[in-house]
């Protein structure tokens, strides 16, 4: 484990009576790509502002390289931010915007010029040096904001929805560019997004937030495969969530049937929720399936068909299928025991991790 560059310890933030951040604990290791994922208003920007130096926590500590920086002003922090509203200076042209940080640090003119032009090339804006900000499209402004932060080669870069204004193609390209750049320069990225696909694609580690709390953190695969609760399961990817009962270790009952599963460590007959990912459900002949359902509708999504079906108890099932099906057809659904993920009600991430320890390997 490399050493942490940013650590948040029990950080709370209140505005008057409203609690915006609740006991935030985070450790960011140098050179990794982290993502904060959560719905609007969950406190993502507030966390970035706390690290950037624009919000002082009501309690708790912010550490940079082991040093407490709660009281260090923003201009003394080796952190740069790409703001959600870009905040490009309208009275300067693109070149001067990007050069701003370097000028402040009294970098020689030739060096500034070389770095600025390189940064603009990176964000595919070569030739736009003399443009004024008002003459740029939203996506171009966003890329200038990225260049303006990157050119300073900060140790930590905070990106507040830095790709949200770009079209799909450019967005995918910039995702690859950013990821590549982050790995090449070894900068620690803390990236905020609403977009779970973006989070899964780019991150070494994801923090899922809701309502000022971090609900779960882990690698994209961990979070996708083993969400700790209903909220995380729903927020990351699509899922079928049904109520069930844990009969004993490795045996769970839902939709009035008993299934073998890979989860354990719960009380006998405990009420639980069961998650089945749509892409883990295979459509088979009715007698070969573990469940029998009737197809209701299907939508073509480009690389798969999104099928909605109902079982005989009127539970809805979402299935991602590579092949088309016929409406009103009765089919079987097949899945492996490992595809069943069982979640306890109200289990915290720590308790979840501890329980996993008791029976895995």
């Amino acid at each position: 484990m490399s050493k942490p560059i940013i650590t948040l310890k029990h950080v709370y933030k209140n505005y008057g009576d409203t609690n915006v951040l609740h006991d935030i604990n985070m450790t960011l290791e140098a050179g990794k790509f982290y993502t904060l994922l959560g719905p609007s208003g969950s406190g993502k920007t507030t966390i970035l502002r706390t690290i950037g130096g624009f919000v002082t926590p009501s309690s708790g500590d912010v550490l940079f390289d082991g040093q407490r920086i709660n009281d260090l002003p923003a201009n003394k922090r080796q952190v740069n931010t790409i703001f959600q509203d870009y905040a490009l200076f309208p009275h300067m042209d693109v070149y001067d915007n990007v050069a701003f940080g370097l000028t402040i640090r009294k970098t020689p003119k030739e060096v500034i010029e070389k770095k600025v032009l390189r940064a603009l090339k990176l964000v595919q804006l070569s030739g736009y040096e003399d443009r004024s900000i008002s003459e740029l499209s939203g996506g171009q402004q966003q890329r200038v904001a990225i260049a303006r932060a990157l050119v300073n080669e900060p140790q930590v870069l905070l990106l507040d929805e830095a790709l949200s204004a770009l079209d799909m193609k450019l967005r995918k390209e910039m995702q690859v560019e950013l990821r590549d750049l982050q790995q090449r320069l070894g900068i620690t990225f803390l990236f905020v997004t609403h977009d779970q696909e973006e989070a899964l694609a780019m991150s070494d580690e994801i923090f899922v937030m809701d309502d000022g709390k971090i609900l779960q953190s882990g690698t994209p695969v961990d979070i996708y495969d083993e969400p700790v609760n209903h909220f995380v399961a729903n927020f990351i990817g699509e899922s079928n969530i049904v109520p069930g009962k844990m009969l004993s270790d490795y045996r769970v009952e839902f939709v009035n049937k008993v299934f073998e599963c890979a989860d354990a460590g719960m009380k006998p007959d405990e009420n639980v929720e069961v998650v089945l990912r749509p892409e883990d459900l295979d459509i088979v002949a009715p007698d070969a399936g573990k469940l029998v359902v009737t197809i209701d509708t299907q939508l073509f999504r480009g690389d798969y068909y999104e099928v909605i079906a109902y079982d005989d108890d009127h539970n809805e099932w979402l299935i991602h299928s590579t092949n088309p099906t016929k409406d009103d057809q009765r089919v079987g659904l097949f899945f492996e025991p490992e595809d069943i993920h069982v979640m306890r009600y109200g289990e915290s991430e720590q308790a979840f991790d501890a329980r996993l320890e008791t029976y895995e390997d």
Partner: protein
Amino acid sequence: MKRKQVLFEMPYFFWLAFFVIAPILLIAYQSFFNIRGQFTLGNYATYFTSATYLRMTLNSVWYAFLITLFTLLISYPTAYFLHYTKHKQLWLLLIILPTWINLLLKAYAFIGIFSQDGSVNQFLTFIGIGPQQILFTDASFLFVATYIQIPFMILPIFNAIEDLQPSYINASRDLGANNWQTFTRIIFPMTMSGVKAGVQAVFIPSLSLFMLTRLIGGNRVITLGTAIEEHFLVTMNWGMGSTIGVVLIIAMFIIMSLTGEHKKKGRKHND
């Protein structure tokens, strides 16, 4: 639809025609007649060749410049700190309040304060300096004129600072700029529109101040405003008065174009 729009615009056009365009045309017309009512270019010839008028013009510009400068130096910091105070609306009201009082009343109040046995001289006597001649000096004229113009400078600057989004300041600090650098490179340039509006609102009226030049300046300072008043009310040389008026109007357009929005000249960056 179209007719309705025209109807709404009518009052505005009439206003513009009768109270803005007509007077300007009349002044321009008047300026081509001499005191006996004969058509002439002599007024302009007199204006541009007479040392008295040229000195008066320079004088006016110089005093207006000083007044604008002092007003700006006081108003910018005031507006800036006002932005960060708690009860800014109340403070703003206190600053605007004096503008509701008639200029003459304010001038007479200052005569009382600055006179031989006014409160300032009483204070100077009290601390042992003794009474001074304050009234009828350049300094007192500049002081009172600045005092009167301050609200007209503070308001536009204050509005410009209020309109400035805090995220620009955050971005500047994020990129390493300290308070002073943030002020000089971001806050001041971005509130320049307010400064320009303030300069327009102060400089042009200051060119033609005439009441204060008499009451506070004791006619030691003679500006174009004083000259116009003199020609219209005393010597009855309306033609000459109008000529000076035309010069003032042209000066106004020059100031407007100097402080207006400029198309930015593109700078070349080598690649």
